[in-house]
């Protein structure tokens, strides 16, 4: 329900922006900057590169606003665009490096979970365990999880971004979740927290 209402709000914002409302344009910017920045961090630890890409993304939006099609999910549209821009920017940088023969580096993985960020998240035992699993998941699985749970995208949208079928997207996410759950089961998870949680639930009930 809230998701639907949120979509409607976004839709009107987008329509206003397309009609030339600059306020709507910057509302979209303000609303999605953090999301986009966080999303970008999954691909690169170079914050300047992410800022550049977000800048270019919005400048293009502004320039071509009249030609933009009607979209039903701004978030999906922006994420997809940013992802494309970052990949373009990264491959440009890599080829520049190659040209100069400075670095004979392997391809930068599509999803590079930064160690420092993972460190923040592994404050609890559970998170540490889950973090370990994340490291062994495939790029596609990691990104699928991210798009599904961080960005609230549908399988259809995920499939579109990853360039795979909806069924593959679904399977990919499902298997990743299964692995994560298994890890929790194997290592056991903090029953103490579960107890608190159950108590809270009882209170609600």
């Amino acid at each position, binding site marked *: 329900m809230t998701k639907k209402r949120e979509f409607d709000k976004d839709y009107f914002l987008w329509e206003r922006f397309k009609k030339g409302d600059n306020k709507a344009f*910057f509302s979209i910017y303000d609303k999605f900057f953090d999301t986009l920045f966080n999303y970008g961090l999954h691909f690169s630890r170079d914050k300047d590169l992410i800022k550049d890409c977000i800048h270019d993304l919005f400048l293009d939006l502004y320039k071509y606003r009249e030609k933009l099609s009607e979209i039903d999910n701004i978030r999906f549209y922006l994420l997809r665009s940013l992802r494309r821009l970052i990949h373009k920017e990264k491959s440009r940088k890599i080829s520049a490096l190659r040209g100069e023969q400075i670095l004979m580096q392997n391809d930068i993985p599509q999803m590079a979970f930064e160690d420092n960020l993972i460190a923040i998240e592994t404050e609890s035992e559970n998170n540490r365990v889950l973090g370990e699993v994340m490291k062994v998941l495939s790029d596609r699985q990691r990104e699928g999880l991210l798009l599904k749970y961080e960005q609230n995208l*549908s399988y259809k949208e995920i499939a579109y971004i990853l360039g795979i079928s909806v069924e593959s997207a679904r399977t990919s996410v499902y298997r990743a979740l299964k692995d994560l759950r298994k890890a929790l089961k194997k290592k056991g998870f903090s029953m103490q927290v579960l107890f608190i949680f159950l108590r809270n639930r009882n209170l609600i009930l």
Partner: protein
Amino acid sequence: MNKKQKIEAHDILSDDEFTEEYFSDNTKKTEKSDEKEIWKARIIFDFLNARKRGSWPVEREQTKKRLEKSIQKAETGKYLLKWVAAVFLLLAIFSVLLIRNNLKTETAIVDFAQTIDPTKSDSVTNLILQDGRKVLITEEESQIVYDEKGMNIVIDSSQKVSQEVKQKKEVFNTLVVPYGKRAQISLAGGSKVWLNSGSKLIYPATYLKGKREVYLEGEAIFEVAHSAQIPFIVRTKDFDIKVMGTVFNVSSYPEDNVSSTVLEKGKIELSPNERSFLRKEKLTILPGHMVTFNPVRKTFQEQQVDTEYYFSWRDGYIICKGEPLGSILRKLERYYNVSIKLQNAEFKSETFSGYLDLKNTPDEVLKVIAETTPFSLKYENKNFNH
């Protein structure tokens, strides 16, 4: 999923309908839900969702400022482009208007002039009224006066002619003066025109508001009543003359190679009929100047002259100063409606200076010329031969 009978954490999370609300909304849970699995799902979800919460206000503002600058730059470029486009569009429209204007110099009066029979066979002055009536004037020198509305016309202070004139509608009268005759006409607007022999003047029968326009073939002197708002336009076969109020002579005979105008007083503006697109010539001339139009090259030539020579015919004499004999004889032919032939064509370019009284008979005038030259005159029927 159902075969397991038990819904596990990954089943909860991977569901299409799953949202964060699942954890707070109990209606979504079924009896199959296991508290333990829900809790696992919650842990996994929180882990996966953790990074979403990062906030980057500094980065956001930095990038926003940069974006605003970029947009401004893009807009300026766009406006510049729009301006350039607008200027081009205006130029295009202007050009089209200019071309159309050039192609459409013909006006009602010019159209009307072309319907008039060009023959000058009549031996008397003809006043053709709006309804087609012809008033014949036998006098050699006639005077025609229109009243303010153009309804009543007085000819030589004695004959009175009336015509019906409807306001707002453009109707024309024509005055045809054959060779050997002259006429003076006072138009409804108060302007006066002296028509020389062999001339035709088409003019509006009534004084129309906002328009003073006549068509001339032949020679005439105009004394235009001053009106700063409404220019008086004289149209000829070669050029148009725009005036505010002035005295000038126009000579535009069909048989003459060149048309000309001489300004005595005031200021007039000339423009050729066939205007070329690239050079829209407009020539403003000042008193004491004569402009000759070369119909072949479509150009104007301006020179300072003694205006007296060009206005003297109105008062019944010709003043010549270094004028070729051919030109003088042509004037006399028209004035008296006679044919004068030079047996030796070489004399055509011989120049003469002097004063010829047109009140005398043609042979008397020619005698004056012959006195100063070794010419002899021969009179044959109505023809004079040197």
